[in-house]
């Protein structure tokens, strides 16, 4: 699997988690019941938090610049 594919897969997972979390949050905001706050925090918050973490992980785990690519950048300069 190429690094780009893995990054795209993580972005997709992150996006799906964030979308689900946002939809749960939207439902809780229009659902005026006391339990809505708990659902918002425990389910919506968890999904959004997880989505954000997967996104951040996809950033730090993307392929770093190698010595070769750095040299190529310097040569261009």
């Amino acid at each position, binding site marked *: 699997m190429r690094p780009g594919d893995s990054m795209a897969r993580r972005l997709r997972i992150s996006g799906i988690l964030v979308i689900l979390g946002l939809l749960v949050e939207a439902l809780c905001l229009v659902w*005026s019941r006391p339990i809505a706050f708990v659902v918002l925090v425990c389910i919506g918050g968890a999904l959004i938090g997880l989505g954000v973490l997967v996104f951040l992980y996809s950033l730090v785990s993307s392929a770093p610049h190698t010595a070769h690519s750095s040299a190529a950048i310097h040569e261009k300069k």
Partner: protein
Amino acid sequence: MPTIAIVILILFSAVLAGVIVLRPAITASSAGKILAFGVLFFLPVFSLVAGMENEMRRSESTAFCLSCHIMEPYGKSLHIDDPSYLAGAHYQNHRVPADEACYTCHTDYAMFGTFKAKLGGLRHLYIYYLGTPPLAQDIKLYKPFNNRECLHCHLGARSFEQGATHNADPATLPAMKANTLSCISSGCHDVVHNVGRWGGKVKFWDGGS
């Protein structure tokens, strides 16, 4: 931030996140990376914080407290047409904000009062959904009502400081201010909600919000 604005923001964020899910390749460009950061980090976190803040504010409303059916008699007590009923008299005369009537009297006006009230609310939720809720008339305060909650508004008010009953005995006012003589259990203002003890005698005021 109004609820409708937050919901629109959430739906907008979800649509943008959908674009990233369907076309992750757009994040290859600098603009795409900025979009991804905004859509998968900034907007969800902002929406979550705004949503939680909105829910916290809503949890202070009278309608929120009365949305558990166990509290319905307490809501009805706010409409009793009898000035000797303390809660009703405060609600009907807007001595407390009508849309935050429960919270105004039942929050603790100390440093962590709001936090304690929210924790208490979570405990109520647990009992309501997972425990055995008591009958409305059996609901009791966790601890005796502190005069501090009354004095938050009444301290310094002419009707309180110079009221004939409050000054009939020179020891009364200092004792109330020191919370050694309770406002509501001293035989003075002891008719508050009185749920379960109305009989067929009470009339209800049909005004208010």
